[in-house]
């Protein structure tokens, strides 16, 4: 036991010293760097540049362009990791629901005081509005589906804490099933958008790729960069929209599961032990 302590302390000190040496001898590059890498210059030059029509993404936001176009497949699989983590949480909480027994309940007696509830009622539409704005302008200004979705998930969390779980499940009808449906809708939208250009190309009969956004040198088809005079950057707008729903619904689902009283969970676990 004593030896283990010394080993822990030694390895931590060694890690600190090695990190310091790496920094001193520029193992991480020149910090702070007066220039950026060539790869970064490529992204910066082509993110919105009408002079190179077969290279550009037509989005002034380089981060969203990388997330959903240059490295779009990467983000698709990260969305899948997110999906699997929530499926894992659902599997652990299987059978533990609040779907019945809400008839005789005085929902308005639960939760915090009336002042807090009124303030929350005013605040929640604002949170939803701001997060929708973050998500829908994701291809123009800093923001996007991930940012908007996690900001929107704050609103159901506030309602869960301030009005109680019963209010959310029995009054607002935000059950686990509806959240799973909304989430699946978002994921389906992401998959449909990633195939949109390919289907368009197959219908017209020209070369096209999965996850293609703007026209490329050997595939002259793409989604329109602007709709009715305002820039939507092809697929980026739709990806942000659907990712917003997927992320917000996924987090809301987990919070509803997490706020179910522990008594319910114990009932289910006892039932499993007795073989019911």
């Amino acid at each position, binding site marked *: 036991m004593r030896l283990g302590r010394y080993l822990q302390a030694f390895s931590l000190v060694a890690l600190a010293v090695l990190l310091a040496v790496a920094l001193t001898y520029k193992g991480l590059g020149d910090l702070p760097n007066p220039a950026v890498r060539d790869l970064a210059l490529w992204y910066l030059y082509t993110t919105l540049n009408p002079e190179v029509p077969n290279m550009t993404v037509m989005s002034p936001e380089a*981060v*969203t362009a990388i997330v959903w176009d240059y490295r779009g497949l990467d983000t698709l699989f990260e969305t899948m990791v997110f999906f699997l983590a929530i499926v894992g949480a659902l599997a652990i909480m299987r059978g533990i629901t609040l779907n019945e027994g809400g008839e005789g309940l005085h929902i308005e007696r639960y939760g915090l005081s009336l002042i807090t509830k009124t303030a929350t009622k005013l605040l929640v539409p604002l949170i939803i509005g701001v997060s929708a704005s*973050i998500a829908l302008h994701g291809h123009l200004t*800093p*923001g*996007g589906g*991930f*940012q908007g979705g*996690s*900001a929107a*998930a*704050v609103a159901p*969390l506030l309602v869960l*804490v301030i009005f109680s779980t019963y209010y959310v499940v029995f009054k607002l009808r935000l059950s686990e099933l509806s959240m799973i449906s909304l989430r699946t809708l978002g994921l389906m939208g992401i998959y449909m958008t990633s195939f949109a250009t390919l289907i368009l190309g197959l219908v017209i009969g020209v070369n096209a790729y999965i996850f293609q956004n703007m026209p490329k040198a050997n595939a002259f088809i793409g989604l329109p960069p602007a709709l009715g005079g305002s820039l939507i950057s092809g697929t980026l707008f739709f990806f942000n929209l659907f990712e917003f729903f997927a992320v917000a619904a996924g*987090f809301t689902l*987990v*919070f509803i599961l*997490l*706020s179910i009283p*522990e008594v319910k969970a114990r009932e289910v676990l006892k039932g499993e032990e007795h073989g019911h």
Partner: protein
Amino acid sequence: MIEPKLISYLFMAVAGALSLIATYLAVIEKDLVKAVIYSAIQSTAYTILFYLLMAPDIALVYIPVAVGLYPAVVFFLIKKTERFEESG
């Protein structure tokens, strides 16, 4: 004359020092509720860092995640399990 660059970098250094103190307190604190609050302070310092390092996208996603959702989830967990860490 003090240049704006110096002020910006000074804020970065201060935010880094704040995050170091908050991390230390969060790791050694025995009361887990206090540890989560220290962790949220550390996240606030990191948000300032992200903003000053010219990453507004990350600042936007980091505020709701690290100051809102994450402490709330851990508070739910502490409420359902135990609040104090035994000395080890």
